[in-house]
């Protein structure tokens, strides 16, 4: 053990022990503990974040299916509304058609009636005119026939002849 390489010196022993123990104390207090605590905290936060992400993903999926439901519902509603509108339109058109045809019929009937009236009036007028004309003609004929005594006598004869005293 004379070799200086394998002979521990008291000074180096002392200083190594002092330096190592102090270093261990300082590093533990100011490095290892804060670093390991921070790493642990970070691990926890990462785990939390991952869990939160997973939750968010589930919520998103739920939301998506909700949205789809809503969309489907809206689609159904729209279809229904369109159908209703179409029906209403058809109704309106058919109502209008019915109303129009009824009105037209009424107009036609009224027109027919008024035509009938006019016709009647015209016929009556014509009859009156014809009567008047007939009277006038008769008057003129009578005047002409009764213009001489012979003729008056002939007529009276004739009339007397016709009168059968039976």
């Amino acid at each position: 053990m004379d070799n200086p390489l394998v002979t521990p010196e008291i000074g180096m022993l002392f200083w190594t022990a002092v330096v190592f123990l102090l270093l261990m104390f300082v590093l533990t207090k100011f490095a290892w503990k804060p670093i390991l605590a921070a790493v642990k905290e970070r691990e926890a936060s990462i785990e939390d974040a991952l869990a939160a992400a997973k939750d968010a993903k589930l919520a998103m999926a739920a939301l998506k299916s909700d949205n789809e439901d809503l969309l489907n519902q809206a689609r159904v509603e729209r279809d229904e509304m369109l159908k209703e509108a179409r029906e209403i339109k058809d109704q309106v058109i058919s109502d209008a058609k019915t109303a129009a045809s009824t009105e037209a019929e009424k107009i036609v009937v009224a027109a027919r009636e008024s035509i009938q009236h006019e016709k009647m009036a015209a016929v009556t007028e014509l009859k009156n005119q014809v009567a008047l004309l007939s009277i006038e003609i008769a008057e003129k004929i009578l005047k002409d026939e009764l213009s001489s005594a012979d003729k008056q006598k002939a007529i009276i004869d004739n009339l007397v002849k016709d009168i059968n005293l039976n």
Partner: protein
Amino acid sequence: MKNILAAIVITFFSISSFANEAEHEKVNSNKDYDPVPAIMEHISDAHGWHLWGGGHDAVSMPLPVILWTENGLVTFMSSEFHHDNEGHYIVSKTGLNFVNLHEKIYQLDAGSEHLAYDEKGKVTNVRPLDFSITKNVFGMFVSVLILLLVFLFAAKSYKGEIKAPRGVASFMEPLILFVKNDIALQNIGEKHHNRFLPFLLTAFFFIWFNNLLGLIPIPGLTGANITGNIAFTLVLSTITLLLTNLNGNKNYWKHIFWMPGAPVPIKIFLIPIELIGMIAKPFALMIRLFANMTAGHIIVLSLVSLIFVFKTIWMSPVSVAFTLFISVLELLVALLQAYVFTMLSALFIGSAVAEDH
């Protein structure tokens, strides 16, 4: 256990071979360049940090010498030895005379101006307790400064709201979590691992940073062979030893003193083996780190020494190429040894706190 034995064998073999070479070189010192003293100087601890030059022209960074003597605390700068480590230059303080012999400080006997040797050539002088801020201690302070800067800065980025790690924290966080999850949690278990995290984390990064800094040759700042110092590894492995045995539960002690499931003679036979194992485990930790890091430094220095051994500049491409290769390998070894030390510490602690199964 195979690795441990191999490490011990290799370590002692290499050390003894150095010793032999050193003796051998004394004979041939006039002929060939001897790389051993330079290598030993680089991998050994020193008072003062040699920068360049040799002998009295050497330039070194003076470091404080702190001695506990019979007259109390004595402090002076290493420069007062005037680069002498052969035990010639005497520094007198508080009525005591000190010399530096091979970076060990001896106290001269009263009235004597020379070191005293016994018949075997061993120095018989008193060595005062030497608490000097040596090259390794100073290098260790530098590493602590860097560690504090890195990790306090990293910790600062975690303040406030939760966010992804940035900058130095993003680099260190995976390593911290690796030590926590793959070293502490794996070997100690969910229930107890948090208690030992401060030691494991600090040991891991302290060893790793010092291993790396040992590879960066900035004289006067980094490049000291700190993790390849036996005292350094002894302290760390002693902490593992204490943590293991002070936290040992009933089950752990039962396995040492009365192995369950074995016949009584075997139980008795196993007691001394288990007791040796108790010490051998941290002893292996100590040797493994020391031997690996010292070996790395020796290889790099040996490769550089080739230039001087072959006495030709044309050797330098070979040295540079091999040194680069070994340095890259050492980057891996630096991390690997920090990992192995921490992992085995966790394993030993884990075996002490494990529940019966």
